[in-house]
């Protein structure tokens, strides 16, 4: 493997990942030796409004995909309203391709717990929840252990560090529903209902959990808070770009030589990430990739130099999402890849709204037909028409996300579709594959 050039190596910014090499960082003693809970002590001496201002100044934007300015979100919580406030951490990581939050919670759970305490103090919440994906059992194991350790040390519970501030933190396991990563569906699920999205407005900032003001933040967002409190907003902004500040964990998967987690300054390009990851696997050439999970429109080899920040990716017609870069080569079929993603959206559609529930159901069937060699040219129009009727017309972003790979793969790889339809590509789906794939 060739060593990456120094200027590419300089894009690496180990901040959120920096403790992962310490095998015991999940234990509170080790965590405390590595700057742990220093940010909390510092934050509790400051006024909550100053902390909100600090986060605003840092330019931190949500790490869950939408990139909403975090300080702004915290600032929306009405103060002095006499209602309880809640902080809910969205740890329901399930966007296909995304794998950054689970390692963080497994190897550095106290970073999240510390961030939760600081964020709750800032928004004046006395109760916080971490809604963790059910299947993420090892991360939950470590996280529950960390929460217990934090209670035992007086970082949680009554009168935290003798400041008079009280906070209860509960780790709540989900039960296997991708839709619960949508913040209002998550809140419904946390209230003990089916996880189905709510109509917005009202937004969770005023009517969230139990109809009270609630901040819902991603794991990476909350884990970013302690380093910002310690290092300051200016230091944080020394990483990333003007409007997308800070470091971001880029998750490379697929046909790369060394897939894995690469925490880089925002705005790094895929070309640079591939250089860090040792290039493509031998015999594979980059063909298509997702910049941030399967809900973000596919990009192609021509987008190697797109800066992977919120603005750069949007300008290229896609979305930064969760920076889950799934990399596919000339040996992978974009039609089949899209089909498999649609199977996923079809399975995970909550059924609340018709465009998403019915649209995905039918698109899966159209794809099966195409991949079985029985597609028609009209099918391609049907797909685009269906996407038109889902995008922006479904209740929440799940439906929108389902259309991303369909429209983008048709935009860049229409020939691949035509090859199936016109019989130049051998059918990929046989009866056997169809069975079980429901």
């Amino acid at each position, binding site marked *: 493997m060739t060593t990456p050039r120094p200027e590419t190596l300089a894009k*690496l910014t180990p901040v959120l990942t920096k403790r992962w090499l310490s095998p015991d960082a999940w234990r509170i003693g080790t965590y405390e030796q590595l700057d742990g809970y220093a940010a909390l002590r510092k934050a509790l001496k400051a006024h909550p409004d100053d902390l909100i201002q600090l986060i605003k100044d840092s330019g931190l934007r949500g790490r869950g995909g939408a990139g909403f300015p975090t300080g702004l979100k915290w600032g929306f919580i009405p103060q002095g309203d006499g209602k309880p406030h809640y902080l809910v951490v969205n740890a329901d990581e399930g966007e296909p391709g995304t*794998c950054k939050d689970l390692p963080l919670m497994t190897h550095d759970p106290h970073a999240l717990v510390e961030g939760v305490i600081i964020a709750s103090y800032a928004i004046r919440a006395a109760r916080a929840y971490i809604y963790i994906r059910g299947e993420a059992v090892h991360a939950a194991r470590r996280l529950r252990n960390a929460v217990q350790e934090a209670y035992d040390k007086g970082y949680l519970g009554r009168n935290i560090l003798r400041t008079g501030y009280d906070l209860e933190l509960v780790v709540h396991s989900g039960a296997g529903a991708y839709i619960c990563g949508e913040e209002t569906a998550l809140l419904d699920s946390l209230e003990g209902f089916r996880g189905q999205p709510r109509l917005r407005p009202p937004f969770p900032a005023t009517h969230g959990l139990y109809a009270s003001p609630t901040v819902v933040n991603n794991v990476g967002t909350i884990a970013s808070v302690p380093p910002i409190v310690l290092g300051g907003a200016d230091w944080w902004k020394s990483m990333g770009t003007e409007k997308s500040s800070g470091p971001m964990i880029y998750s490379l998967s697929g046909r790369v030589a060394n897939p*894995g987690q690469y925490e880089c300054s925002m705005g790094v390009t895929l070309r640079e990430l591939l250089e860090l990851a040792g290039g493509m696997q031998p015999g594979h050439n980059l063909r298509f990739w997702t910049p941030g999970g399967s809900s973000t429109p596919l990009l192609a080899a021509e987008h190697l130099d797109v800066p992977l920040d919120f603005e750069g990716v949007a300008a290229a017609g896609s979305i930064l999402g969760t920076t889950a870069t799934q990399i596919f080569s000339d040996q992978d079929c974009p039609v089949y890849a899209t089909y498999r993603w649609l199977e996923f959206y079809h399975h995970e559609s909550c059924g609340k709204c018709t465009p998403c529930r019915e649209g995905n159901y039918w698109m899966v069937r159209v794809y099966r037909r195409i991949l079985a060699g029985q597609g028609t040219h009209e099918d391609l129009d049907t797909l685009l028409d269906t996407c038109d009727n889902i995008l922006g017309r479904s209740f929440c972003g799940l439906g929108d996300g389902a259309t991303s790979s369909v429209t983008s793969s048709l935009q860049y790889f229409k020939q691949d579709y035509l090859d199936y339809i016109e019989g130049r590509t051998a059918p990929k789906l046989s009866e056997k*594959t169809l069975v079980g794939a429901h």
Partner: protein
Amino acid sequence: MSVVFTDETRERAREIIARYPADRSRSALLPLLHLVQAEEGYVSPAGVAFCAEVLGLNKAQVGAVATFYTMYKRKPTGDFLVSVCTNTMCNVLGGQEVYDTLAEHLGVGHDETTADGTITLEHAECLAACDYGPVMTVNYDFFDGVDASTAVGVVDELRAGGRPMPTRGARLCTLKEMAVQLAGFADERDGAVADGGPGEPTLRGLRLAQQHGVSVPGFDPNTPIRSKAEADKAAAEAKAKAEAAKPAPAEASAAPVKGGDGASAPTGVAEPAKPADATGSTAPDVKAPDDKSPQVRTAETRQPNADTAVPDAPGTKVPADATGTAPEADDARSAEAAGVAANVPAGDGKPAGDEAGAQERNLTEAKAETDADGAGPADANETGAQK
């Protein structure tokens, strides 16, 4: 309904409910459903009844939730739930082959259990370990980078009574034991929390940084947290400085327009914060021509912030009138009344305009309201004109 849940389960149910606010016990439903699975291996009608009883819900309410989530099984399961990821990434890397091989080897399909009751097989959607793909899990702990033969090896060992060690995560327990953890209880097995170090893909970026001595410079943990007042002052100063630094020609060309910015800049005095500034956004007010892809635009509408004007969204800028001042509350009320009048009324579930006189009545009501609020005659006239 012959199952009577043990006292231990009842005690645990009480503990679970106590985690949530007293009047919000329904929040305990998901963990309680995991708990009944811990005793029975699936959510049986008795389990549904148990949850309903302890939460004061009816069985239909509980059943509706239980059937929504994938992890609640509706028929008895084996001791080990083998889930093979067949979502796109793992799929193309060989996950589909692993699943197909296991299904054939075990003689079961999706969500089915082997006759000896050891293994339930399922194909799973993305398990959030794409950098280790293709992956499978046994009772949700990971076996990374599997291929057909290693997967068969794992299930054979399980069926022979062995407990193969997951690649990451803790040593295996049974599915029922795992359900106790999912209900929110600690893993009581000695040392289980310590099991499983990070795999190589997780550490790759970090190792690279360490090998080459890359770190983020300028980190000082003692950087003071500025008070909000200081921050506001600094922001105002920075703004004034930026205004003063504007090149002169721009000033001249902007002169005919009576804007607040132009007036304050030459004196270098920071003007009072405008409503737009209250959102804390530093984004420019002028948006670039909209050449965004539909996906991007839709995504922004879903998550409106200060940059995207969506009615009623928090932080959306109040539209300023020509003089640059925020509209008065009264203006907003009369505007709303006018808006009501302009809308075609939809009354009593009938198509708009169906009921004779409905429109008339609504308009009169709107007018009465407007008058009561003391809105100007202009609004009243407007309403009248529409009659």
